[in-house]
């Protein structure tokens, strides 16, 4: 507690202050942050190059696909190829692509004839709503069930929870979506359909105000439920195994020996230590949140970014694909960065590095 130097020599205390003040650990913290930020920027630059190469290597004739069945003359096809910049050399297209990305326009969609950024902005809301809701509920449900199962591994609760979770995890998302759609929207036998079949809102209702939000919530139930049922199992499994690993630890024995209730030991002692693998999972999951869920969005015609990407693939609308690829990659890179920072806060071992 006491320091003989500071206690006896006030001058020395002044000199030593910078190294002993709360600012002291900030230097490595800043270095850590700078290193991670630098790595993120490099990753992003590499992503740009990979994205461009990937989509420009795809064998494609978007003009023919877009105009198929329409009365278009060969001269018009040439004109259209030139309008889309397909006649330019690859290096020019790459420079244009980098320039567009750095200016935040993300290119110009061939199919929708609008900037990719405006399309992405229009879809990010629905994606975050669907993915965010299902993410939050999956994490809470998965972690809660997982830690309770793991704590009493082998019990009836554990057996039931684990089998349901594993079954749902193995079910194809598309199939599960269709079954829920049949039961809850169309109705089977005595059950009448009670939820909307698709879309995000009912066009015949006002598009603002409380009634609209209730309507959006109704439309959200089935796609979100499908996502939750498919995803929560991952958290159950990881949390369960982490807790099982902790159960034999001596510190839990100590806690119990102190007379603490079993429930308290689980929540306050075992849980924080068992949480780290789940945190990794959460950040990995968060990174993919923006990219949406193509299958679920397709089943329920949910107008999100996954669905936009699928639409772009059909042509293929290369600028739109490149644009969404960059947005998805950037979200993964940012989430990885945040995960690194969070680890430093959560895990003393990382701080010590």
């Amino acid at each position, binding site marked *: 507690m006491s320091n003989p130097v500071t206690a006896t020599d006030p001058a020395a205390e002044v000199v030593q202050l910078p190294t002993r003040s709360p600012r002291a650990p900030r230097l490595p913290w800043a270095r850590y942050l700078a290193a991670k930020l630098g790595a993120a920027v490099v990753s992003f630059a590499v992503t740009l190059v990979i994205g461009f190469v990937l989509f420009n290597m795809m064998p494609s004739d978007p003009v023919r696909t877009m105009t198929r069945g329409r009365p278009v003359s060969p001269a018009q096809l040439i004109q259209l190829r030139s309008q889309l910049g397909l006649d330019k050399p690859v290096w020019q297209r790459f420079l244009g692509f980098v320039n567009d990305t750095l200016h935040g326009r993300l290119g110009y969609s061939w199919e929708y004839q609008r900037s990719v950024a405006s399309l992405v902005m229009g879809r990010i809301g629905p994606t975050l709503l669907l993915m965010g809701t299902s993410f939050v509920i999956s994490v809470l449900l998965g972690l809660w069930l997982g830690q309770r199962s793991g704590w009493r591994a082998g019990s009836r609760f554990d057996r039931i929870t684990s089998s349901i979770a594993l079954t749902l995890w193995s079910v194809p998302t598309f199939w599960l979506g269709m079954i829920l759609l049949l039961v809850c929207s169309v109705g089977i036998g005595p059950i009448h359909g009670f939820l909307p079949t698709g879309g995000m809102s009912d066009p015949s209702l006002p598009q603002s105000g409380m009634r609209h939000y209730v309507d959006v919530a109704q439309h959200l139930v089935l796609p979100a439920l499908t996502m939750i049922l498919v995803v929560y199992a991952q958290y159950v499994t990881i949390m369960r195994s982490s807790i099982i690993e902790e159960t034999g630890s001596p510190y839990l024995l100590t806690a119990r020996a102190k007379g603490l209730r079993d429930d308290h030991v689980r929540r306050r002692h075992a849980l924080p230590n068992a949480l780290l693998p789940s945190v990794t999972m959460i950040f990995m999951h968060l990174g993919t949140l923006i990219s949406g869920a193509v299958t679920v969005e397709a*089943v329920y015609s949910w107008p999100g970014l996954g669905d936009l990407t699928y639409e772009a693939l059909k042509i293929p609308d290369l600028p739109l694909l490149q644009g969404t690829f960059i947005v998805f990659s950037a979200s993964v890179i940012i989430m990885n960065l945040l995960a690194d920072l969070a680890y430093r806060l959560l895990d003393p071992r990382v701080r010590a590095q």
Partner: protein
Amino acid sequence: MVLRERHRPRTALAATAACALSLAAPAALVSPAAAATPHNAPGKTLRVAMDSSGVDTLNPFTSYFNGSLDIFGSIYPTLTVINKDGRPSPYLATSWSISSDHLTWTFKIRKGLKWSDGRPLTAADAAWTLNLIMTNETAATANGSLVSNFTSVTAPDPTTLVIRTKHPQSNLTYVSTPIYSIPIVPEHIWKAHVAGLKDYRNDSFPVVGYGPWKLTGYKTDQYATLDANKSFILGAPAYDHMVDQLYKNSDSAVAALRSGQLDYINGVNATEYTALKRDSGVSTAESVGNGWTGLELNPGARTRSGKPLGTGNPALTDPRVRRAISLGVDKQTLLKKVIDGYGTVGEGYLTPAWSQWVWKPSPGQEQRYDPAKANQLLDKAGYKRGANGIRISPKTGKALALRLGIHSDDSTDAAIAPYVAGWLKALGIKVVIDPMSMSALNSDLGKGDWDMLMDAWTNGPDPTYILGIQSCTTLPDDQGSGGNTDSFFCDPAYEKLFAKQQTEFDPAQRTKTVDQMQQILYNADVDLMLYNSTTKIALSSDLAGMNTGKPDAQGAYPAQSSFWSWLDATPKAGGGSSSGDVGLWLGIAFAVIVVGAGVAVVRRRAGVDDRE
């Protein structure tokens, strides 16, 4: 302490709700901004499924997708309309005449029509629209080829439109029709947007136009809302409003129809159709199809100057090999097994939807499934069977193996390919099935890098364009670019007839010429027509009048266009369901049960703790 313990699950629930609500905020970002006038005005609403292609842009000068074309057909007028018999008839133009040299067309335009903003709709609007497409590259994006033969378009007075052409053009009455060709737009609205036409999105609602409907709102890849034009000149829609809603897969659209959330789907697949036939709340109907499914054979890809192109198997340049393949494919089985018999075996190149162009081979000329004859032809061509049963090319000494390109996302192609491969294997031809994306397939096609491809087309009421993609002029240039060919077909006799049909003004004579062209295509064995499937329609039993025309002997209605179907739809007396309210109450009940169960679990768990 105990209290805190008990509160914890509630805190978790509250946190969940808070997170969900905070995440719900982005919904506000998308809902009001991107359009959609509230569509809750009183009156009956018709809900139709949007064409699965969706809407690319609401700018009719630059749009290609069928979802958009259906909307333009409803909200913009055209010079003529394709009537229920598939022929051009009066719309904006009440009559038309042609000069004796066949170069000047005069259209008489209706008096007294008004755009939806009250401004007069005259011949000047039509002249301005057509002139813009003739002179502006961007405006020509979607329909430029339709006016490429025009020298001038003028409106000497509000009720007269004069079109002069470079060469006689027999299909001029097809140049401006709903859905299939050029929509007329209001000059007073669009002239301000000519400079930035490429980026103009046409999304100020309601969109000024004239048609059976008025566009009141649109949300990208979700839906369009429309109001009826009760004073529409060809008859007022019976419904007051319409919602044109996009479903990303047909199963969802069918589910919406069965649950009463949708009234009409034009085009469900065979499996769904068979199931829907048994559904009590749903009516079904077939209409004569406007498309074909076929197998293309590469006859030796060449450029316009005759330079060979690509990697096509030279065996297919031999007409005997192509004929053998044609005789070796059992179209009747494909029709029965792949589309459950909903259609007819393919013969003529033009589809059954437009009866004036339907052609059939004369008796005795039909190419029917005949493997024995096919084998004979291959023997005659010198392709002897090797030890493994696969034939050997007499020129190269290599086994006769052909690539079959199919659309990787198309279940029909996937169903057809193994049949074709099996039948050809029996003939001694090895087939390598190569699934590709539509785009990759098109790319290979353009470069001549293919042997056989699965193909499908639809055609509108005027056959010029689809006949044109078999013309020599659509072959690529020596650099391999500038082509728009469908299968590298090029035949001098066909070429002459193609030019001839463009200048024949007697419909019967033109039909005769087109028949001869179809005969040439049939005998060339380059585009093997497998079948013409019917369009399968499913609609709510509460609807009447959507299927226009009278069914043929097989029970199939004439081809249905969204223009007439949406216009003629009538609600049956006492129709309409209130499933929305029921859904809301059931939804609330569902929520109460879930929350109740949650509370019960929490209370029980707390009790367990106390017992411990």
